C-alpha cells in the first residue's frame, strides 16, 4: 500500500470528500469548462479578478478523486495571487506532476499545499486528472469560451 498512499494522500482524500470553493460564482468575470474524455471528468472554473489579482475563484463539476482534489486545492492556492503568479504556479505544478521539477530549485512561487500531488508523477495516465482544472483555469484567464479537453 506504500505506492497507493503516495498517490492518495490524506489531504487529497479530504478535499475529494469535502471540496472547497465548490460553487457557482454568479458574478464571475471569467469562466471556462473543461472535460477529460479519458474518465469523463467535467469541471467548470469561475473567476473574478480585481485588477490583475484573483479576487474570487470557485469550481463545480464531477470526476475522480485526483481531479476533484486538484480543483479544490487549486482554488485555495490562488486567491490573492496575480495572474502572472498563477501562470508561474501552473508551470511549477505541471513540472511537479510530470516528475520534471528540480528539487534543488526553490524559486518562487512556492507550491505550498500543492506538493501533495507529487505522487501523481508515478502515474502518467493520471497527470491529465491533476491538470484538467489548471488547463481550464488558463482557458478562463485567456477568456476562451470553448470547452477545454485534455486530449
Amino acid at each position, binding site marked *: 500500500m506504500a505506492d497507493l498512499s503516495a498517490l*492518495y494522500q490524506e489531504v487529497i482524500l479530504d478535499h475529494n470528500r469535502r471540496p472547497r470553493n465548490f460553487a457557482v460564482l454568479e458574478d464571475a468575470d471569467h469562466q471556462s469548462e473543461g472535460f477529460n474524455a479519458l*474518465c469523463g471528468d467535467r469541471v467548470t472554473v469561475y473567476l473574478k479578478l480585481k485588477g490583475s489579482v484573483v479576487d474570487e475563484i470557485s469550481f463545480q463539476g464531477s*470526476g475522480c478523486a485526483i481531479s476533484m482534489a486538484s480543483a479544490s486545492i487549486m482554488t485555495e492556492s490562488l486567491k490573492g495571487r496575480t495572474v502572472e503568479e498563477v501562470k508561474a504556479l501552473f508551470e511549477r505544478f505541471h513540472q511537479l506532476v510530470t516528475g520534471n521539477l528540480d528539487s534543488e530549485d526553490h524559486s518562487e512561487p512556492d507550491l505550498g499545499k500543492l506538493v501533495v500531488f507529487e505522487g501523481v508523477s508515478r502515474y502518467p495516465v*493520471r497527470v491529465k486528472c491533476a491538470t484538467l482544472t489548471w488547463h481550464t483555469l488558463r482557458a478562463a484567464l485567456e477568456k476562451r469560451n470553448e470547452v477545454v479537453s485534455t486530449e
Partner: protein
Amino acid sequence: MSFSTTARNHHPCVSEGLNPGRIRRDFPILSRKVHGKPLAYLDNAATSQKPQQVIDAVSRYYSRTNANIQRGVHLLSVQATDAYEATRERVRKFLNATRAEEIVFVRSTTEAVNLVAQTAGRSILGPGDEVIVSRMEHHSNIVPWQMLCQEKGARLRVIPVSGRGELLLDEYEKLLNPRTRIVAVTHVSNVLGTVNPVRKMVEMAHGHGALVLLDGAQAVPHLEVDVQELDCDFYCFSGHKIYGPTGIGILYGKWNHLESMPPYQGGGEMIRSVSFEKTTYNEPPHKFEGGTPNIAGGVALAAALDYLENLGLDRVAAYENELLEYATSRLSQVSGLRLIGTAPSKAAVLSFVLDEVHPHDMGTILDLEGVAIRTGHHCAQPLMDYYGLPATARASLAFYNTREEIDALCRGLEKVMEVFE
C-alpha cells in the same frame, strides 16, 4: 444465457467443461506480472489476448510467405494470396455466410460501419429518411450514421433502453415506418453485456423495407453467429476482440447488396480497368478492398477462429456464463457496489459503480493489484447519460479467466474501500 441463434454443436464433447489451466498456457501474456502481482486480465471487451497459435501464424507468415497479394506471378505472391483468400472462406464458414465473396476485409468494426454508411447508406438515404440506432451503441455505430444523416438531411432515431439494460422493442416498433431506411444495432452491448434479440429486430425492420447492420464486435467472441439465420443485411466484427490481431476486421454483406453498392475507397485492387476517361470496378468483395491489406492479420485471424472453434463456442459460452454468474454473485456482495446492466440475457461483461468512488480511482488501485479493468465511458456516452453516470468500471471476461481472478478483483475492491473509507 439465451442466444439469438441456435447452437450448433461443433465439438464432440460438449458436456466436458473447458480446462482453463491448460488453456492459459496457450496465452503467453497471461503468465506475466504487473506491479509484481500476477496479471488478472479482465479487459477483454477492449481487446482480447492472443494464443501462441495466432502469434505463430503472424511470425510464420512473415518468415515464410510474405509477398503482396492478388497480382503477383511468383510463388510467394501466389501462396500469400491463397492464405489470405483461405481466411475469407474460413470467415464465411464461421459466420455461415452463403459465399466467400460476401466477406469483405476491413481494418475494424468501425471501418465496416463507415463503409456501409458511405456506400449503401449514401445511395439509399434521402432528405426526410430515417436511420435507427439504439441508445446502447458504441460511438462507432452512432457517429458514421449521424454524419450521413447530417449530409443527407435525414433523421437519426434512437431505440431507448430499460433500466436493466434491455432495448425496448415496443418503442422500436413505433420508430419503424416507411421512411426507415437503415437500422444499425449492436448484437451485444460493450457496456452492459446485453444480448439483443437481433433476429426479431431484423425481421421487424425488414417488414418496413429497411436494411439492417449488426455490430457483432462484442458478440462473436462469446456466441455462435449464423448470418443466414439472423437474415441481417450486414454484420461486422473486429479480429482483435476474437483473439486475433489488431488492424483486421470483417464486414459481411448479402451478395445482392454488395453487388449494387458503389465502391468505398478508390485505389488499386478495387478496379477492373482504369483510364482517364472511365474506370470500371472490380467485383465484390475486391471492389471494397482498395490498397494492400493487412495480409498477416488476415492469415492470423484464421488461426484465431480455428483456435476458438477447436475449443467449441458452445463450451466457451457455457464456461463464460458460469464465470459470469460467479462474478455477478461475488460483486453483488461488495457493499456499495451497483451493477449497471442486469438483463437476463447477457454476455460476460460486468459494468459497475461504487458509492463515493470514481471508477478511475478504482482502476488505478486495481491496477496496482495486478487487476486490469476498463474505466470510463466505454465510447458509449449516450448510454452513460441515460444512466446519469460519467463513467463506470467494467470487467469483461474471456474463457481463459478464472474464479481466482474474480476473487482478485473483489480483493482489489476491498483495498479501494480501505483507501476511500
